[in-house]
């Protein structure tokens, strides 16, 4: 295994001109159940028609530091259009292994 933080998503790629916006929280205790919406911080915006998977390791570690095994991270994924529209968000929680 290697240090990695990738997001595989569907549908892929996004429609022409759309970008993937990834917001994430800091690394949380595994016992945390409630994710405060204000904890999400923007870490990554993909290229137009973003294709899966998105590698967000460097973006995340720049903002929040190295990954720690056992910690939990919440992600919020949104599609953005060039004229300022955004999709409903998809929230996913993942534990670092």
């Amino acid at each position, binding site marked *: 295994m290697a240090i990695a*933080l*990738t997001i595989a998503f569907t549908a892929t790629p996004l429609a022409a001109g759309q970008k993937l916006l990834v917001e994430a929280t800091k690394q949380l205790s595994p016992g945390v159940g409630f994710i405060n919406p204000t904890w999400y911080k923007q870490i990554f915006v993909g290229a137009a028609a973003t294709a899966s998977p998105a590698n967000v390791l460097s973006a995340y570690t720049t903002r929040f530091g190295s990954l720690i095994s056992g910690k939990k991270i919440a992600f919020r994924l*949104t599609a953005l259009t*060039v004229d300022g529209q955004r*999709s409903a968000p998809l929230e996913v929680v993942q534990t*670092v292994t």
Partner: protein
Amino acid sequence: MKYTPGPLVGEMSGKQGNTVASHNRFGPYFRGRIIPINSRVLPQILQRNNFSAASKNWKLLSVSQRAAFVMAATSVFKPDRLGRTYQPTGQEFYVATARNIYQYDATAALPTTVPSAAAPVAILSATITATSV
């Protein structure tokens, strides 16, 4: 301090003086107010600058441009802090649109016309791989 919503005091949110009304999984409660941390980190400063620029630009739009955003905002519904839906004002809709454009491209010009396309389809599913070693 917990309380039970009744006929006189229903759901509450926000602050009055030094008392803040909030709610969590165990129900509504009151707590003392603390001054929020103002970290002044770079992303926060950028977001505030973007917000400020969009808000100022709203005043520079023509009457017809503003009217178009006001009209478009009537078809937008958002949830408030208590979960009820509300319609943003034209200015709120404009600032939200400008913020999305800044997130899409930090160097893009501020909008003067209402978004024409429908909102994009949400991400259907995501599988995240997070390994530390």
